[in-house]
């Protein structure tokens, strides 16, 4: 009987790549046939439009080739044809589970290029929003990973908690998802007492809710057996493959840009870098869970230390003026017109700024030619790099482990595909 491959007039490159993958894996009881299984791009457990081609021997994965690009929107090309301000809304759509930290990462890179110092209050608010984004993203990661292995309740609980954070986003910037909250040299709006009250209320309930999740999962035999020793990747492989974020920390490498290459005011805040040694799906789950708790600690400190003062740098040629002043003051109207139409005039040069987003190191590399639009803007997306370790993690696993492993990588395809 002819195989599926032979029926096609032209063998596709991805299938050819799968055939080249090293499939030397020995099992004690191998079945006779190998089978090619296509998973995704329309598969609920792939967290978006990830496609994985898998070669199976019975139920054991011999090799796999992930295929990206089903959500490729060409943001790097768009960035080259937009002013620095115009690109801010596009950053929301990268890691759409933590849009606020993308906003922060992008403007930090532009500010590094321009050499702007922002006021202390703005820095603290940026810490607040990055940590809120981290908590929201980790809540989704924890809930959806539990759902992937069959525990649906946790997803409902964590989404209920995340909803409260989205309500704070709503008060803060008028949008729940597409926040576009940061501006070059400052922020869109000030942090209000309402936000403080809402966040305090959220944090008070958060500890209790996380405790409930903990009770449900941490000693749950089914959950532990589905995740323990699944998706192992060695510490050395993690470093070689450029893993960042919870995956790297779950393999025992305490790398956290917030502490190692501090930005904003993370130096003044007291928090621990969570690590684990096991480097399996369960360890990654625990790292994310504890990191969310650490973020709650940071949020409390940052709210306490939040200083008064302006939220935008006093650089009229670079920072957009406030809208109410644009409508009433001549000077601001001129600046607004020039900044919107011509863009900022940055120095010629190239900068890289990475931040520790919830998925790992989110970095922006900008090459500036001195005009209002970046000559080249590269997005270093943690999800894409973390996904590149998927073949290592799922080699030798069972089919049912694949969803747990993808859940433990916690990829967001909007970011991986750019």
């Amino acid at each position, binding site marked *: 009987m002819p195989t599926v491959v032979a029926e096609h007039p032209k063998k*596709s*490159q*991805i299938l050819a*790549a799968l055939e*080249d993958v090293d499939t030397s894996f020995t099992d004690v009881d191998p079945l006779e046939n190998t089978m090619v299984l296509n998973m995704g791009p329309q598969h609920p457990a792939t967290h978006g439009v990830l496609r994985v081609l898998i070669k199976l021997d019975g139920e054991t994965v011999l090799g796999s080739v992930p295929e*990206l*690009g089903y959500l*490729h929107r*060409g943001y*790097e*090309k*768009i960035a*080259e*044809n937009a002013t620095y301000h115009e690109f801010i809304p596009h950053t929301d759509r990268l890691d759409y589970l933590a849009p606020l930290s993308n906003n922060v990462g992008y403007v930090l890179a532009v500010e*590094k*290029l321009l*050499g702007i110092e922002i006021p202390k209050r703005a820095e603290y608010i940026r810490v607040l929003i990055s940590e809120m984004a981290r908590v929201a993203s980790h809540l989704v990661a924890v809930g959806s990973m539990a759902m992937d292995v069959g525990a649906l309740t946790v997803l409902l609980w964590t989404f209920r908690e995340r909803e409260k954070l989205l309500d704070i986003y709503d008060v803060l910037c008028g949008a729940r998802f597409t926040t576009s909250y940061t501006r070059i040299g400052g922020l869109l709006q000030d942090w209000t007492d309402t936000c403080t009250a809402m966040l305090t209320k959220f944090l008070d309930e958060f500890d209790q809710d996380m405790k409930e999740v903990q009770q449900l999962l941490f000693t749950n035999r089914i959950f532990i057996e589905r995740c323990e020793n699944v998706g192992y990747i060695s510490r050395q*492989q993690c*470093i*070689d*493959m*450029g*893993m*960042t974020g919870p995956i790297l920390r779950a393999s025992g*490498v305490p*790398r956290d840009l917030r502490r*190692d*290459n501090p930005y904003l005011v993370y130096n003044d805040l007291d928090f621990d870098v969570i690590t684990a040694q096991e480097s399996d799906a369960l360890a990654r789950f625990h790292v994310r869970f504890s990191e969310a708790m650490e973020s709650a600690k940071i949020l409390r400190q940052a709210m306490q230390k939040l200083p008064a003062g302006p939220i935008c740098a006093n650089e009229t040629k670079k920072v957009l003026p406030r809208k109410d002043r644009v409508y009433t003051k001549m000077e601001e109207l001129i600046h607004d017109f020039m900044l919107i139409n011509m863009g900022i005039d940055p120095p010629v*040069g*190239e*900068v*890289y700024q*990475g931040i520790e987003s919830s998925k790992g*190191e989110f*970095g922006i*590399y900008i*090459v500036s030619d001195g005009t209002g639009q970046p*000559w*080249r803007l*590269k997005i*270093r997306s943690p999800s*894409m*790099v973390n996904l*590149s370790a998927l073949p290592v993690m799922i080699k030798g696993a069972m089919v049912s482990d694949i969803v747990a492993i993808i859940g433990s990588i916690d990829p967001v395809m909007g970011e991986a*595909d*750019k």
Partner: protein
Amino acid sequence: MNELILEKLKQRFPESVESSNEFRGDLTVQIKKNHIVKVGEFLKNDPDLQFDMVIDLLGVDMYRPEGRFEVVYNLYSIKNKKFLRLKVLVEEEECIVPSVVSVWSGANWHERETFDMFGIKFAGHPDLRRMYMPEEYQYHPLRKDFPLMGIPDSLPLPRK
């Protein structure tokens, strides 16, 4: 730290280092294209430097007659908590760079992406396919001569 890195590189590879500059505290070292693998191996294995991670690898289309493309390597040393940027120039006629996958396996997908977006080939890459664009696509979208709106009919509709 930046001085130490530069000094070590210049001392070890006097003929490989073409130029270097520092902007906003970031050190960029331009390396001769064909020496990138041995420089990378040195940077990774030197006990003082240990640049063991390739955080990012990207192409830039400078759109100039000589040295049209740049390939930029963004390295990180976990031990020193330090970033370093290497850069090689690539000519349009000879659009091929030695692959550094043998040094840092994490460069694999980054090099595929660079090939996809700029058409820069990487010699010795184990699996140089397109990363994002469809397999049958003819163009390299991040080149400066590729129009923003795309090229009409460049993606054929599915056959019936």
